[in-house]
């Protein structure tokens, strides 16, 4: 699973899929992203890095540290992939998200946001999907704001526990799931 076309094909088959990023998982019903990894683009002076979703945090940290830069969010387990962090985090992570490339439940490749720090064109889908736990779309690429090491450290504190949301709120989440994954492929 290391090209966009193959990922799209697999999703288009319409079988229920669970997105994971783990080399040891390679069986029916799982979409393993660990082979879809690497830096797509990185210019230190832009304070922006674009990564394929399967890239491990420890690899990103190593690349950034060559330029005295770092990820400005909390991450205890550096074995995790950036896609996994994206899927399970909250605003303290999404504050640094600038853009995202996804494949929706119908196998379409979509791009939201971009690679610049300021961008208010269109709804903020790249931050909306943070925390979606792989249930709405397959995230293939993420663009992040990064910071110099000494500044980034200020933001690497553990996030507060989350609160349950209202049933009306959940109704809207369900409606949004319908938009990205109308056939219910991602479980």
């Amino acid at each position, binding site marked *: 699973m290391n090209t966009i076309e193959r990922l799209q094909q697999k999703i288009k088959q319409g079988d229920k899929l669970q997105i994971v990023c783990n080399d040891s998982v390679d069986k029916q019903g799982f979409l393993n992203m660990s082979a879809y990894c690497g830096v*797509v683009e990185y*210019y*230190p*002076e*832009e*304070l*922006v890095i674009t990564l394929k979703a399967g890239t491990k945090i420890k690899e990103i940290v190593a690349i950034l540290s060559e*330029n*005295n830069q770092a990820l400005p969010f909390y991450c205890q387990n550096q074995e995790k992939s950036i896609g996994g962090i994206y899927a399970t985090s*909250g*605003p*303290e992570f*999404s*504050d640094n998200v600038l*853009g995202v*490339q996804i494949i*929706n439940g119908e196998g*379409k490749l*979509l*791009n*939201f946001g*971009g*690679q*610049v*720090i*300021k*961008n*208010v*064109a*269109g*709804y*903020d*889908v790249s*931050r*909306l*999907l*943070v*925390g*979606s736990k792989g249930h*709405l779309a397959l995230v293939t690429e993420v663009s992040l704001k990064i*910071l*110099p090491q*000494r*500044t980034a450290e200020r933001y690497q504190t553990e996030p*507060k*526990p*989350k*609160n349950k*949301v*209202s049933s*009306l*709120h*959940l109704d*809207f*989440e369900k*409606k*949004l799931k*319908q*938009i*990205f994954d109308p056939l219910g492929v991602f479980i």
Partner: protein
Amino acid sequence: MSLTSELIRNLPKGLVMVGSEATRPFECDGLSAYKQKPLAVVLPSNLEQIKKVLEICQHFKTPVVTRGAGTGLSGGAMPLEGSVVLGLSKLTRIISIDKERQVAVVEPGVRNLAISEAVDQFGLYYAPDPSSQIACTIGGNVAENAGGVHCLKYGLTVQNVEAIKMLTIDGKELSFSRQDDGIGMLALMNGSEGLLGVITEVTVKLTSKPKIARLVMAGFSSVSDGAHAVAEIIKHGVIPAGLEMMDKLAIEASESFAKPGYPLDAEALLLCELDGVEDEVEEELKQVVDLLSAATTVKISETESERLLLWKGRKSAFPAVGRISADYYCMDGTVPKRYLALVLEKINSLSKYYNLRIANVFHAGDGNLHPLIMYDAGVDGELEKTENCGNDILKFCVEVGGTITGEHGVGVEKLDAMCIQYGEDELKVFHQIKAAFDPDSLLNPGKAVPSLHRCAELGRLHVHNGELPFPELERF
């Protein structure tokens, strides 16, 4: 019963305005090139009244345009034909301030600067500072995800909002917070341009005021030298509180208007503000000055009044340009910083092609450009020519991997440009998000996202991410 008589019957006297004269002050926002009178303007003073307005508008299937102070620059608060303007400027209560947690809960009509003024006594302030901060409201700031001069270090609105409450078109109350379990609904509401709900309360994050701030001004004999200095400063690990650049025309206009002492022989001017605790600022100051070897002039503010004077020139750049031209049109594209000089070159060639003067003011630190295209609305066809020139600039911003709007929003102004930025599939998702919250499309309909039909008519193709049209360019 008509819509207006229902509004008048159900709301206290004086809150509903109808007729050409009474609604005229609301016919446009900060983008005065576009004007439209609404059916009525309602200025409610509490939540129940807002609910009543929405109920009546929903019943009559009448569009609602929510408005803060009307300072927006993309027509987001411009009335639509036959619409009701829901002005929230009377909801100006600061509900609570928690100086320990560094948050304040405010009504949507509270002015941006009023928040900072109210918490100044605790050594705190609200960081995002759009240039209209003296007048613009926090509700409008959230709706537009407003930016400002200090975004690179302190974030945009979305990073400075803790929670919001909003009403859906059918009057249901929703609240979104940074502590919510689940997807980023709060982030979605920031910058949703009044299309998804009516914001009724905002909890903002407050920031500790820096101990000191110093400003470095540097003049350069070329724009590329200035742009190179910007990249060097950031590459060396300095995150300035503000990093602004102006071109020659903007320098001249500002100098003759505010007399801050800018070097008139410079082709580009850089303003770099460093703030924080004293030791840190001194160290960064040395670092920055060392990196300005290509500058022809370097000046560091020694006193607070000197710092403010140097800023005054930059902050009055827009009115200064207004003085040398009958009208001007402000663009808002953002580009990767490594293309700043190239984009400016392109803007200069477009200026010659269209025979329109363009002054350039950049938030250079985050690559956000504000070209000011000067024109005369009194001359037939000049506005159209200006808009074409503006669209060409935005197209180029997208081509180099940037965006059509960094902080002003799409509104009515950049609907065509949205067809360049996004493809049909992404636009469809935007329309579906709108429909999930507002199925009858009554909240600010037609703004922010162009119809697929409109884009098809324009016949414009968007540039796909990752397919840069200039692979041959040297990347510096």
